[in-house]
């Protein structure tokens, strides 16, 4: 009887277990799902079976005799999910939005993954003064002309035209939409001329920033009359890129399918692009799970977080067919000094206004040791912030500050010998602040303890949670010696705009010179924390830099611009306004024995910059 009861119990338990699992399995797939609104034209390759999540399951094989094979699917894994598909909407500036968008967007320019330079996409060439695409008018205005590729069409066959450029411009300038209008607002609306395959406009003043505008075009015939902010978050307008939006399973994946009307051909084989039938973007937020998915070959491509342990773990897979590329990314870390009043809130004895002190700090920092400890020597330390934008333009102006504690000690002695200092009453000291929830920065702060001790500078770490540091601390300049990162953008536009953060005429809250180098007093700002006296450093250098900054923002001649940028770089280095440290690592990994054509791109374009050229090598 006892055994019978046990057997029955076990039977019932088993049945209940099975019931729960089946109920769970049979439930409707009730996460949000959005599917593309535009139907795909007939493709040159035919999908004969449903793709599967395992990467090695191509659906069709149709190869040109000597070309690359058509068909199949690639799965790209990301630790983030787009908050929207609309790059113009709030949240649309998120990196993952571009990573996915590279599949279906088109625009004037792209960033080449090999050279990290701007290249034309939908236009015949990028406009310059030399090729006549840019002209400076007698009244000081700048006219820009685009010639659109004849073969460029949207996925539904509609030619991409000047009307689409004009519609894009009008949408961005719509005052009811929360869209960043930088540069676009300098276009004189009366000068906009749209032709079937041309677009022309005039800016009220010359600016190199114009090289980055119209990077994303909006198809007038598909979007006109819709609610731009609310209608295009979960679905996408007709594609101008190699793939079309197909499905977004919220929290899980986005699927793109081949755009059969894509106009580009492979430069090597002359085959029509793209090669793949579909691309899936899977969202796996946890790093360990992301790596395990890659190891299990459930995904083909990953951009893992730049941790050394992760990179070394992935590199062990190279013998099994994976390819792991580690490059310097666009995010560059830098040490900086606060010149505003609130440096004294953090460190009452701050010596930031004295050049000897800043030079001493520059000689105190052993960048090689920092890179070896934090990045295991995978990249070189930075010798200039220009390295993060256009390395070929860099003067390496910070190379003048080699790691030399003796020089640092001598400079501190010079500082203390000045008539306006009293190092006995106020010893030379540094209080270092950065974010405490970033392991690399915590390591950095630990390394600094010994370095500053060697230079005879009293040193203290005061790290903060990033929400506080990037909130009140950054806004009000409540630090002495600080450290955080900026993001570099290839091309002159990015390089010019980074100089805004040193603009002596740009004190917060209106400007972005958080360092308050050379800034005037701020009064009447809200909240009150912004209100402070004039910068502790206002001199000929800050005045000259302000002129240079204005000049570079109104110059489009490349040679002239290079000269101005060089002078600005030299001033910032000579005056030790900041100390560039290193660019964060940017790894990319692919199963190269399954997927060809992939080239890791550490810039904002991301690894999907040439997604149309990816192909399955295992077909």
């Amino acid at each position, binding site marked *: *009887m006892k055994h019978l009861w046990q057997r029955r*119990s076990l039977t019932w*338990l088993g049945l209940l*277990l099975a019931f*729960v699992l*089946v109920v*769970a*399995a*049979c439930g*409707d*797939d*009730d*996460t*949000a799902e959005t599917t593309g609104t535009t139907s795909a034209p007939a493709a040159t390759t035919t999908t004969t079976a*449903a*793709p*599967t*999540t395992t990467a090695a399951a191509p659906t069709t094989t149709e190869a040109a005799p000597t070309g690359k094979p058509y068909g199949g699917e690639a*799965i790209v894994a990301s630790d983030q999910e787009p*908050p*929207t598909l609309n790059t113009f*909407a*709030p*949240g*649309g500036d998120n990196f993952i939005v571009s990573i996915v968008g590279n599949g279906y967007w088109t625009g004037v320019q792209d960033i080449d993954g090999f050279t990290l330079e701007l290249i034309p996409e939908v236009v015949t060439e990028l406009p310059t003064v030399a090729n006549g695409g840019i002209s400076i008018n007698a009244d000081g205005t700048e006219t820009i002309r685009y010639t659109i590729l004849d073969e460029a069409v949207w996925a539904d066959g509609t030619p991409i035209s000047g009307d689409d450029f004009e519609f894009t411009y009008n949408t961005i300038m719509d005052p009811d939409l*929360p869209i*960043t*209008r*930088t540069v676009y607002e300098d276009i004189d609306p009366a000068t906009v001329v749209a032709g079937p395959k041309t677009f022309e406009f005039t800016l009220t003043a010359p600016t190199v920033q114009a090289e980055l505008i119209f990077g994303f075009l909006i198809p007038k015939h598909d979007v006109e009359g819709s609610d731009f*902010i609310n209608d295009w*978050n979960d679905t996408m307008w007709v594609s101008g890129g190699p793939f079309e939006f197909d499905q977004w*399973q*919220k*929290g*899980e994946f986005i*699927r793109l399918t081949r755009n059969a009307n894509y106009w580009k051909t492979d430069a090597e084989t002359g085959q029509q692009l793209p090669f793949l039938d579909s691309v*899936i973007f*899977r*969202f*796996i937020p*946890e790093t*360990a*799970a992301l790596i*395990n*998915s890659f190891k*299990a070959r459930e995904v083909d491509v990953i951009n893992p977080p730049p941790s050394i342990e992760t990179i070394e773990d992935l590199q062990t897979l190279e013998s099994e067919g994976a390819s792991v590329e580690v490059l310097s990314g666009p995010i560059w870390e830098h040490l900086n000094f606060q010149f505003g009043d609130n440096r004294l809130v953090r460190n009452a004895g701050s010596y930031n206004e004295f050049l000897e002190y800043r030079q001493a700090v520059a000689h105190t920092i052993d960048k090689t040791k920092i890179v070896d400890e934090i990045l295991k020597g995978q990249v070189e330390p930075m010798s200039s912030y220009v390295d993060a934008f256009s390395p070929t333009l860099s003067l390496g102006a910070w190379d003048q500050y080699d790691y030399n504690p003796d020089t640092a000690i001598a400079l501190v002695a010079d500082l203390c010998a000045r008539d306006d200092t009293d190092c006995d009453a106020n010893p030379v000291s540094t209080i270092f602040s950065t974010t405490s929830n970033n392991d690399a920065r915590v390591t950095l702060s630990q390394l600094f303890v010994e370095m500053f001790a060697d230079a005879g500078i009293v040193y203290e770490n005061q790290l903060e949670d990033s*929400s506080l540091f*990037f*909130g*009140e601390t950054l806004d009000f300049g409540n630090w002495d010696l600080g450290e955080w*990162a*900026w*993001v570099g*953008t290839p091309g002159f536009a990015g390089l010019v*705009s*980074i100089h805004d*953060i040193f603009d002596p005429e740009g004190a*917060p*809250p209106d400007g*972005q010179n958080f360092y308050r180098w050379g800034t005037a007093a701020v009064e009447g700002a809200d909240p009150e924390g912004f209100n402070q006296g004039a910068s502790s450093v206002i001199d000929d250098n800050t005045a000259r830099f302000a002129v240079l900054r204005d000049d570079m923002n109104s110059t489009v001649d490349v040679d002239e611009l290079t000269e101005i940028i060089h002078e600005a770089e030299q001033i910032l280095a000579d005056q030790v306004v900041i100390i560039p440290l290193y660019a964060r690592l940017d790894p990319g990994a692919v199963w190269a024995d399954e997927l060809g054509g992939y080239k890791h791109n550490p810039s904002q374009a991301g690894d999907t910059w040439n997604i149309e050229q990816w192909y399955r090598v295992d077909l």
Partner: protein
Amino acid sequence: MLQYVIRRLVYGMITLLALSIITFTLLQNTGGDPLDRLKSNPRITQQAIQEMAEFYGLDQPGTKQYLTWVGNFVQVWNYPTAWGRSFQGPQQVQELVLNRLGGTARLMFTALGLAVMIGIPLGIYQAIKQYSFFDQATTTFSFVTFSTPIFVLGIGLQIILALKLEQWTGVKFFYTSGMNSTSYSDLSFGARIGDTLQHLVLPATSIALISIAGYSRYQRASMLEVMHSDYLRTAKAKGLSRRSVIVKHALRNALIPIITLVSLDVAGVLGGAVITESIFAWPGMGRLYIQAIFLNDWPIVMAVVMLIGFMVVVMNLLADLAYGWLDPRVRYD
């Protein structure tokens, strides 16, 4: 009884209102700004950040922001705009949160179901077989799983049952991530069940293992207490069969304490499993919730907290009502 239920519901509403005020105040004073991330981009001007603040209503005083939020939040029928927009993009919070409920329910109810169906009988059996080899072995197993962090458990299951098992056998039994395959909608009914189980087993097992350990220990203790009570000794002395003593007299009373535990766990289901959902890339509330916290996206945080609060109020009420059903001594006056 009805009067009691109504009174409890009124208290519940007051509790929820207090919860919303406390949570909102805390979120407003954490020192972060939802738009902070924009500041690291030198190409985004202060003017653009200001326009974004106006778009989200962040330029308004905190009190006004709360009153606007609470006024809209209670109008749940105004789908999908009632709960405002997420600060991460223009998406509506109500849509985002409700879309994740299905995923969370699938994972958490499966895990909870497994935990209840295995943990409670296990605890009962352990009590019946007190100090036996089975009791000792399962007790040790419970302690080990209960003290293992779920992160370790989840990643361990991924490595052993998804990665290694496939390497050893050449057959893919389980997936490391996601709720379904991307081709799910194209699969047959049978294949869908298989696909769902292949994705569900590892995350559900991770959660269930820990819950089973907890439930079994709790149930064992409760059962032992009842089994040593006088009325059970009397029942045995009256000559009732062992089965009758255990099932009719001991079990019913031993289940009462565990009702509180289960009801609170059911209430917590809506919050999802933050770590498990992240490890297995499961599209649930926990993942949404933790991302929102990190990004100072308080409309999402508030919505999830209020849903959990609502469930706690309701489940507590149901638990109290269940006490009355299980224990005739309990009366609602």
